[in-house]
């Protein structure tokens, strides 16, 4: 039933894939095969072009100036020294810049990350806020000039504390059933603890970059965005130009993890500077700005109350989750994402509230809500297992849910139990002795911990166009973008499956807002969203081709009933002829040439899952289990994660090679989340004081544990005909609590506030 992968052993898929065959015939078997990603040769040779790689003639360079206070008012701005720097073309600020509009609130097709455009007023809401923009002939000149812009502020003390309690504001009930407080009060065994996760910075290695260029009243953005269509729509509103006049191009994205979902203020600044100077302008934010101006996962503080019967059956579960937000936007992390449905419990309440802070606006970061929420819930579950003297895997199994108890819906496909059992077996969990510090290897104390994981499954609207061309190539176009995980290859796999053409004869064109509108890259929904649309477009183009073949004089297929024709391995032939034989039929391009056509095209569309009658009454989620081993050397207070076993139930995996890579990468990020990452704000001025990659620590290759990834292979046909859900987020969910539980097992120290630091463990 399952196939596992450790390291980069060749991945294959077996078992339930067979179930899929009926629904989506994969005669070439390329769906589900671990093929190399088609963009590899570009990415490994430095040929792939990211936003900041674009050069245009007469391009100027823009560098923003950041506020050095976290709250207050700009008293004066002296730009004379900056303007005097050789090569400076303009210094833009509130006093001299043309107006920027706001994007329409709550327009789902034109979302912005920070509602307030740059320079809108004289207030400073957070440290690092842009107060001016220098544009110069060279990057060196612009950087030097930005450093000599003198701003004076009426500074106030910002509020940036990581402590969110005491909170006296209004709570919002997210989910509720039964009578949780009474049930908790009466429970035989209880856990009542508060858990915290820090501000984390997305920190893709690609810096946010905008190259803006105007041609008359039309503007093109070479942009680092996870959504070219949304970016176009938002920029049109902010710049006050028709949507048709804006084009957004993102050929390659140096990953985003959510931080590049929607435009940030610098994007419009680049466009305004470009319009003013009538020159292309490149603006690449600095790594320092990445910590203050382009989002972060907000601080969360979550009180969990879990009550159980003496034999470990949950009776009450209450989550009260706070997260911080900026003073200009209300960002709800949604920590209750997975709480309502993960376990069976009759009495449950999830409540949340926001706490304002003088920080830049938070933004969804990989697994928003679920990842910090599951850190808290799965840590609490581990504490409950300790209190019950029960094995933590057993506790989860005992409380597995059969329906989504938050809404009474059936799960489209839920195999959490098998994730737990498979993970337990692969990890060797049965050998675990529960006493703290009881396991040793090579003189080091071992800690073993585990956690369950979950993430929602979604599909949104998508349009694509497939062309079959007389040059012998098939092409697919879609205004979505590959954030780096393999979407180009997913498109190519579907087209290869449908046409039988090798990758060399398939072109995938993404990342241009003028193409048919595709989805934002977020929430692990890209693959599930695009698959049906590409399949439909390919089927349509092939149907058109076959019809032309049947009606075009001069081909061996002329006069045939189009229904009896097929396209296999790039050839059009009669169904009665053996597919794949060189003698069977004709190459498809010969049909087009005979018909004197450049090509045939067809559009394909898929709709949102929320409007799909087949899907909307189901609860759709991916599931997983994380098992972690830590090595602890108390004599030198050294803790390292040595091994992680991950089992993922995410429907059918279209490309197990890229998929396993993504899960491994998420586990590595989880190691960082557990042990290393925290954006620290200086309480005096609100500056992210560790805002660089030497002080904000992310896992290096030396921190990466041995990682064993297993995909369960249960296609979820309620979501799409391929049965694929998505894997972008779920690999991170559950890693931190598994590690935190392992740390407890090794050291006896329960760390409820991430990251787990050396100083937390010194008491052990």
């Amino acid at each position, binding site marked *: 039933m399952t196939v596992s992968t450790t390291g980069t052993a060749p991945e294959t898929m077996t078992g339930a894939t067979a179930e899929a065959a009926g629904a989506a015939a994969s005669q070439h078997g390329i769906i589900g095969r671990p093929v190399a990603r088609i963009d590899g040769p570009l990415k490994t040779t430095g040929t792939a072009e990211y936003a900041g790689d674009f050069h245009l003639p007469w391009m100027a360079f823009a560098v923003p100036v950041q506020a*050095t206070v976290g709250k207050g008012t700009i008293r004066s701005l002296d730009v004379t020294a900056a303007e005097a720097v050789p090569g400076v073309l303009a210094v833009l600020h509130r006093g001299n810049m043309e107006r920027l509009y706001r994007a329409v609130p709550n327009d789902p097709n034109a979302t912005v990350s920070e509602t307030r455009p740059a320079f809108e007023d004289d207030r400073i809401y957070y440290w690092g806020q842009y107060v001016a923009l220098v544009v110069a002939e060279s990057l*060196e000149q612009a*950087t*030097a000039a930005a*450093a000599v812009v003198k701003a004076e502020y009426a500074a106030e003390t910002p509020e940036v504390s990581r402590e969110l309690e005491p909170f006296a504001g209004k709570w919002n009930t997210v989910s509720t059933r039964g009578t949780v407080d009474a049930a908790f009060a009466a429970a035989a065994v209880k856990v009542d603890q508060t858990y915290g996760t820090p501000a984390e910075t997305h920190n893709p290695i690609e810096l946010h970059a905008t190259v803006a260029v105007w041609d008359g009243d039309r503007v093109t953005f070479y942009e680092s965005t996870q959504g070219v269509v949304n970016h176009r729509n938002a920029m049109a509103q902010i710049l006050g130009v028709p949507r048709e006049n804006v084009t957004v191009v993102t050929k390659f994205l140096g990953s985003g993890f959510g931080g590049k979902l929607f435009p940030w203020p610098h994007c419009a600044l680049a466009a305004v500077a470009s319009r003013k100077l009538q020159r292309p302008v490149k603006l690449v934010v600095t790594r320092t700005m990445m910590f203050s101006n382009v989002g972060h996962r907000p601080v969360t503080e979550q009180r969990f109350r879990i009550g159980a019967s003496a034999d470990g059956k949950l009776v009450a579960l209450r989550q009260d989750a706070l997260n911080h937000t900026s003073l200009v936007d209300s960002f709800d992390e949604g920590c209750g994402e997975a709480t309502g449905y993960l376990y069976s419990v009759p009495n449950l309440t999830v409540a949340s509230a926001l706490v304002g802070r003088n920080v830049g606006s938070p933004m969804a970061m990989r697994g928003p809500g679920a990842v910090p929420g599951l850190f808290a819930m799965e840590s609490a579950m581990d504490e409950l297992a300790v209190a019950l003297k029960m094995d933590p895997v057993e506790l989860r199994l005992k409380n597995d849910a059969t329906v989504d108890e938050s809404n009474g819906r059936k799960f489209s496909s839920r195999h959490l139990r098998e994730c737990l059992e498979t993970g337990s077996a692969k990890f060797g969990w049965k050998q675990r002795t529960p006493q703290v510090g009881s396991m040793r290897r090579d003189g080091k104390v071992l800690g073993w911990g585990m956690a369950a994981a979950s993430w929602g499954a979604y599909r949104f609207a998508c349009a694509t166009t497939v062309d079959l061309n007389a040059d012998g190539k098939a092409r697919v176009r879609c205004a979505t973008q590959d954030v780096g995980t393999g979407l180009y290859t997913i498109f190519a796999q579907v087209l290869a499956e449908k046409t039988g053409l090798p990758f060399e004869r398939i072109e995938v064109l993404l990342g241009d807002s003028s193409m048919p509108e595709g989805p934002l890259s977020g929430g692990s929904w890209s693959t599930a969203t695009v698959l049906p649309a590409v399949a439909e477009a390919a089927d349509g183009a092939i149907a058109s081709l076959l019809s032309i073949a049947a009606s075009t004089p001069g081909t061996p297929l002329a006069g045939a009933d189009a229904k009896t024709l097929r396209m296999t391995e790039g050839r059009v032939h009669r169904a009665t002829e053996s597919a794949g034989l060189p003698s069977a039929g004709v190459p498809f391009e010969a049909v087009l040439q005979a018909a004197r056509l450049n090509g045939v095209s067809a559009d394909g569309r898929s709709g949102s899952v929320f409007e799909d009658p087949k899907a909307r009454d189901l609860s759709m989620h991916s599931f997983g289990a994380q098992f972690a081993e830590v090595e602890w050397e108390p*004599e*030198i*207070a*050294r803790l*390292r994660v040595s091994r992680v076993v991950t089992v993922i139930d995410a429907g059918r995996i279209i490309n197990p090679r890229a998929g396993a890579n993504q899960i491994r990468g998420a586990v590595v990020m989880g190691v960082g989340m557990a*042990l*290393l990452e925290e954006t*620290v704000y*200086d309480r*005096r001025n609100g*500056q992210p*004081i*560790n805002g660089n990659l*030497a*002080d904000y*620590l992310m*896992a*290096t*290759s*030396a*921190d990466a544990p041995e990682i064993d990834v297993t995909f369960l292979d249960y296609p979820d046909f309620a979501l799409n005909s391929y049965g694929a859900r998505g894997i972008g987020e779920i690999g991170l969910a559950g890693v931190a609590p598994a590690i935190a539980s392992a740390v407890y097992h090794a050291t006896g120290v329960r760390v409820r506030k991430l990251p787990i*630091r*050396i*100083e937390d463990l*010194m008491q052990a």
Partner: protein
Amino acid sequence: MQSFSFSKAQTVDEATGLGGRYIGGGTTLVDLMKLDVETPKTLVDVTGLPLAAVEKLPDGGLRIGALVRNSDLAFDPTVKAEYAVLSEALLSGASAQLRNMATTGGNLLQRTRCPYFRDTSYTNCNKRNPGSGCAAMDGHNRMMAILGTSEDCIATHPSDMAVAMTALEATVHVQGAKGKREIAIGEFYKLPGTTPNVENALEPGELITHVTLPTPRRGSKQVYLKLRDRASYEFALASAAVVAETSGGHVRYVRVALGGVGTRPWRAHEAEAALVGKPATAEHFRAAAEAALKGAKPQTENGFKVELAKRCMTRALTMATA
């Protein structure tokens, strides 16, 4: 980065005569110039000077040219064999790329990672603006020093190499307008006191030409142990360089230096005194560590460094005497 004029020197005399800031690997200087912490008007590229050799000295010691790159020094056969603590310290620092760039002389002059020193928007930094105050004291101070601090500065010295050289009792050789002189490494680094802007014994215009190490002590064992949050590519929270010789289960000779905890590479004289002649046991190592950290002055967030440094030193001593 502010504008500067650039020139390249071919000889030491030419370099010292040009009157500018010397640049070797650039890993500290270019970094700080980008932050406008360093704003030299003139930059003198000294990488063309003939100072890139590692040579055995007739007396058995070692001469290390100021331009020997960290990676070359770490992998030098003599250093690996006879000064293992130095090789280990070098390889624990930074990344392979930075070690390929950083020079011996430059690394000795590496400047603190204090975030308040590195950000010129904080006008209150006694190191940058003498007399202006210290933003770190009341700020995020987890990484700050606990030894050798003063009312005016708590910035940690970031080097690993210099810690090993301190345990090895290296000598720094410099040349300037007044000629050549040599400075024991213990005298080279200055405590911040009331003048944290004065970090070392160099006179204006003086250039480090080379470092010498004394003959390795026969029968001694050397260890460099570095503790940090991340497994690699991070500055030390605490590190210990130990050179020790034992016989008959007793410590006959020991040199201990600590990194990551001091305002300069921290020679633990008290620990050495507490150890010599004593049995090489865990109790004595721990007692020595207690002695070394006796004067520690932690800040609000770095109290753990006191105990961490003790554990680090105790383990390094254990390893060096095993």
